[in-house]
C-alpha cells in the first residue's frame, strides 16, 4: 500500500478549490479582505454553500455528501494558501464532533442546518492555554433534569455568528462534549479576543450557571478523534500557508534589486527559499498521508500521522514566515507587507492544538517503545 491514497473526490475538490479561491479571493487583496472580515466571510460562505462544501462530512441522510475529512483537506489547504479566516474549520470540527459522538436524535437535530449553510464552532481551550484537551476546568452539574454549566472557554472562533458551539466540560469527573445553542449563548458573556492572526474572529465565552437540556450532551465523546480532526485541518491550513508565503517570498526575490542584482540571486536567500520549498513538499506529504490514514480508520496510525504533520508543518511554516519578513528587509518591517500576515498566521497555527515539542512528546512512545 502506498502512504498516500488520493481519491477522485479529493482531486476534483482540490481543482475546484484552486479555481474558486484564485477567482474570488486573489492573493493581492488579502489586506482589503482583512479590513472587512464579515464581508469576506459572507462571500466565502455563500460560495462554500453553493459548492456543497458545508455538508461534505455530514451523512447523506442528514443532508450532506457523506464524504470524509480527507475531502475537506484540499479546501482548507487552499484557504490557507489565500489566507482566508472564515468559520469553515470551527464549523467542520463541530460537525465532526457530532458525527462521531452524537446519537441519531442529536445528529438529526443539529446536522441538517449546517449542511444547509449554518455556522458552528468549538470551545475546547481554556484560560490556562493548555493544549491537552482533557485539561478542562469548565464544569457541568446535572441538577433537576438540567445541566448547569459553569466556566470559561477561550479561542472560540466566530462565536458571534455561530448557531451553536460544541464545548468541553467535566461532568461526573469525565470530559464531555456539550452543544450550546445560539439562544443559550446569548445568556453568556462573550468577549472578543485580540489574537495574533488578524484573519481570525476569536472570542472568550463565560458560562455562569447556564442551564442546558440534557439532550444537548453528546452521547459518546471521543476527544482523540476530535483532536486528530483538528490537527489534520490545521496542518492543511499550514500546508497551504507555506505555498502562500513562498509565493510572497519569490515575488520579492525576483523583482527586488540590491547592489545591482536581484536579491534572489544571492545564495543566502536562495538556499533558505529552497529549504522552504522542500519543507512544503514534506508537510504536504505528511498531510495527505494523515488524510489517508484517517480515511483508513486505524486510530494509532492516524494519531501518529496527524501529530507528525502538525509537528513538522508548524515548525516549517514558522520558519518560512520568519524568513519572509527578514528577506523583505525594511519593507518587511511594515504592516503593509504581506509577509507579516503569513508570519502571524504561522504563529497562530503553530500555537493552536499543540506545537512541535508538544506533539513530539506524544509521538515518542508511539514511535519508540
Amino acid at each position, binding site marked *: 500500500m*502506498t*502512504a*498516500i491514497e*488520493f481519491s477522485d473526490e*479529493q*482531486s476534483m475538490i*482540490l*481543482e475546484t478549490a484552486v479555481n474558486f479561491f484564485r477567482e474570488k479571493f486573489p492573493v493581492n487583496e488579502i489586506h482589503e479582505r482583512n479590513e472587512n472580515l464579515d464581508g469576506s466571510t459572507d462571500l466565502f460562505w455563500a460560495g462554500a454553500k453553493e459548492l456543497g462544501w458545508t455538508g461534505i462530512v455530514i451523512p447523506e441522510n442528514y443532508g450532506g455528501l457523506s464524504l470524509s475529512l480527507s475531502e475537506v483537506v484540499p479546501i482548507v489547504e487552499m484557504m490557507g494558501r489565500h489566507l482566508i479566516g472564515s468559520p469553515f474549520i470551527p464549523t467542520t470540527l463541530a460537525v465532526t464532533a457530532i458525527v462521531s459522538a452524537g446519537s441519531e436524535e442529536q445528529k438529526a437535530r443539529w446536522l441538517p442546518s449546517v449542511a444547509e449553510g449554518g455556522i458552528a464552532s468549538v470551545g475546547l481551550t481554556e484560560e490556562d492555554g493548555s493544549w491537552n484537551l482533557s485539561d478542562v476546568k469548565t464544569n457541568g452539574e446535572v441538577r433537576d433534569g438540567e445541566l448547569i454549566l459553569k466556566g470559561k472557554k477561550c479561542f472560540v472562533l466566530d462565536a458571534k455568528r455561530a448557531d451553536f458551539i460544541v464545548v468541553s466540560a467535566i461532568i461526573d469527573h469525565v470530559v464531555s462534549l456539550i452543544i450550546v445553542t445560539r439562544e443559550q449563548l446569548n445568556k453568556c458573556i462573550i468577549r472578543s479576543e485580540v489574537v495574533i492572526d488578524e484573519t481570525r474572529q476569536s472570542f472568550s465565552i463565560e458560562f455562569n450557571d447556564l442551564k442546558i437540556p440534557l439532550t444537548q450532551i453528546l452521547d459518546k465523546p471521543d476527544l482523540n478523534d476530535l483532536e486528530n480532526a483538528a490537527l489534520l485541518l490545521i496542518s492543511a491550513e499550514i500546508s497551504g500557508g507555506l*505555498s502562500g508565503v*513562498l*509565493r510572497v517570498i*519569490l515575488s520579492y*526575490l*525576483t523583482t527586488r534589486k540590491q547592489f545591482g*542584482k*536581484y536579491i*534572489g*540571486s*544571492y*545564495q543566502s536567500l*536562495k*538556499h533558505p*527559499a*529552497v*529549504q522552504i*520549498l*522542500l519543507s*512544503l*513538499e*514534506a*508537510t*504536504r*506529504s*505528511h498531510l*495527505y*498521508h494523515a488524510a489517508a490514514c484517517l480515511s483508513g480508520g486505524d486510530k494509532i496510525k492516524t494519531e501518529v500521522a496527524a501529530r*507528525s504533520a502538525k*509537528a*513538522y508543518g508548524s515548525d516549517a511554516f514558522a520558519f518560512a514566515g520568519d524568513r519572509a519578513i527578514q528577506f523583505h528587509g525594511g519593507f518587511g518591517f511594515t504592516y503593509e507587507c504581506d509577509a507579516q500576515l503569513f508570519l502571524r498566521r504561522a504563529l497562530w497555527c503553530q500555537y493552536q492544538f499543540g506545537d512541535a*515539542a508538544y506533539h*513530539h*512528546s506524544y*509521538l*515518542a512512545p508511539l*514511535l*519508540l517503545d
Partner: protein
Amino acid sequence: MSVSPTELAEFEVQADRWFAENKPEKPGFILPETFMEVGTDEQFKFLRAWQNKVYENGYVGLSWPKEFGGGGLPQVYQDIATKAMATHRVPFLLNTIGLNWAGPLILSMSSSEDKKKYIPSILSAEEIWCQGFSEPDHGSDLGNAQCKGRKDGDDYVINGSKIWTSLGMYAKHMILLVRTSTEAESKYSGLSFFLAPMKTDGIEVQPIRKLTGEYGFCQTFFNDARIPASCMMGKEGDGWRVAMATLMFERSAEGGQAGGLSMMDLSIDDVIELAKRAMRNGKPAIEDPFIRTELVKLIVEAKGNVYMADKAEIPALEGEWPGAVTMSIKLRATEFKRRMCQFAISLQGANASRYIDDRAVDEGMWQRSYLNAFSGTIGGGTTQIQHNIIGERILGLPKD
C-alpha cells in the same frame, strides 16, 4: 507487459528465500561501506564474486532487455529483488556505476552493437565501470571541465586529469567528459562524452586516501592517451547533454537502472536499535527525554521523505512547483544520512571518540559512516550546488 499478482507474490517469496539462504558469511576482513571505498584486492574479489552470483541467479538487471543479458521483466520484479537485498542486508553490488549510471545511459542512447558489447559484462561484473567527470579544480562545476581531447585521425588525444574515480584501479571502462573545443559558443557546447577503455597507453591511475583512512578513490591522469573516436557517445559537442542524462540516472531522477544495493545502508531503525543498547546515566539512552525528541524528529523527517516519493506519483498533488521532490532526492537523502550518523555517534558516550576497532561500538561503523556521508553531500554536485539548481530550475530564481 501485464503483471500477474500471483506471479509477483511467488517471485517475492522466491527472492526472499534466495537472499536468506545465500547471504555470504562475514569475510575475515572489514567490508567497504559503499562502492566508493573498495580499496583492497580481497574486498574487490569478494564483491565481484557476490555480484556475479546475484546476476547468475537472476536478481539484478531484471528490467533490462533479454537480448543484452537482462531479465526482460517489468521494473516491479527488480524492485522486489532490490528490496529483498535490503531486507537481508546482503553486500552491495560492486559495479554500481555500470549498473545504475553507464548502463541505463548506454541502453537509452547507444547502438545495438554497443549494447551487446557492454551490457552483459556490466551485469555479470566481469567488466567494471568508473566515471571521469570531476576534475581537481572543478569539483561541482562540471560544465567547466578542462581535461582536453584533440581529434587526431581516428582518435582523440586526451590530456588532463580526473579525480574521485571510484573503482579506478579495477575499472575496464570509464564514462569520460572532456573538452573537445575551446572555441565553442558556450562552455557547455565544447564538451564531448566517451566510453573510454581504461587499458590505454597514457592513462595512469593513482589511488587517493580518503578522510576515513581507506582507499577506493583515484585520480586518473591522461598523458596523450589515444581514445578511438568510435568510443564517443553522441556527437562532438554533445557531452554536456549526455553528462546531464547520466546525472539524471545517478540522482535517480530517471528510471532504468539495473537495480540492487550500492551501499551498506543504515536506516533510522538502526539508530533506534543503537539507542536501546547505548547507555546514558545508567539507563538505556532511548529513555532520555532529549534523545527521544531528537529521534522522533529524525523519524518524522525520514517518513516525510518516504511519503514524498508517493506524493510525487500523484499528478494532482504536483502543486505549484513541480519537480521539487524528484530533483531533491539526492539532496534530502544524503543530508539526512549525514545528520543521522552524527546523531548515532552522539549516543555512544565517551566511546563516540573511538574509531574502526574491535572496542568501538559496532566496530566503529557509525564513525566511518559519518565521515563517509560527506561523499554523498559533496559528490554528484554538493548540497550547496543542489540548492542552487533547485532554486534556479524549480523556483525560477536568478543565477548568481
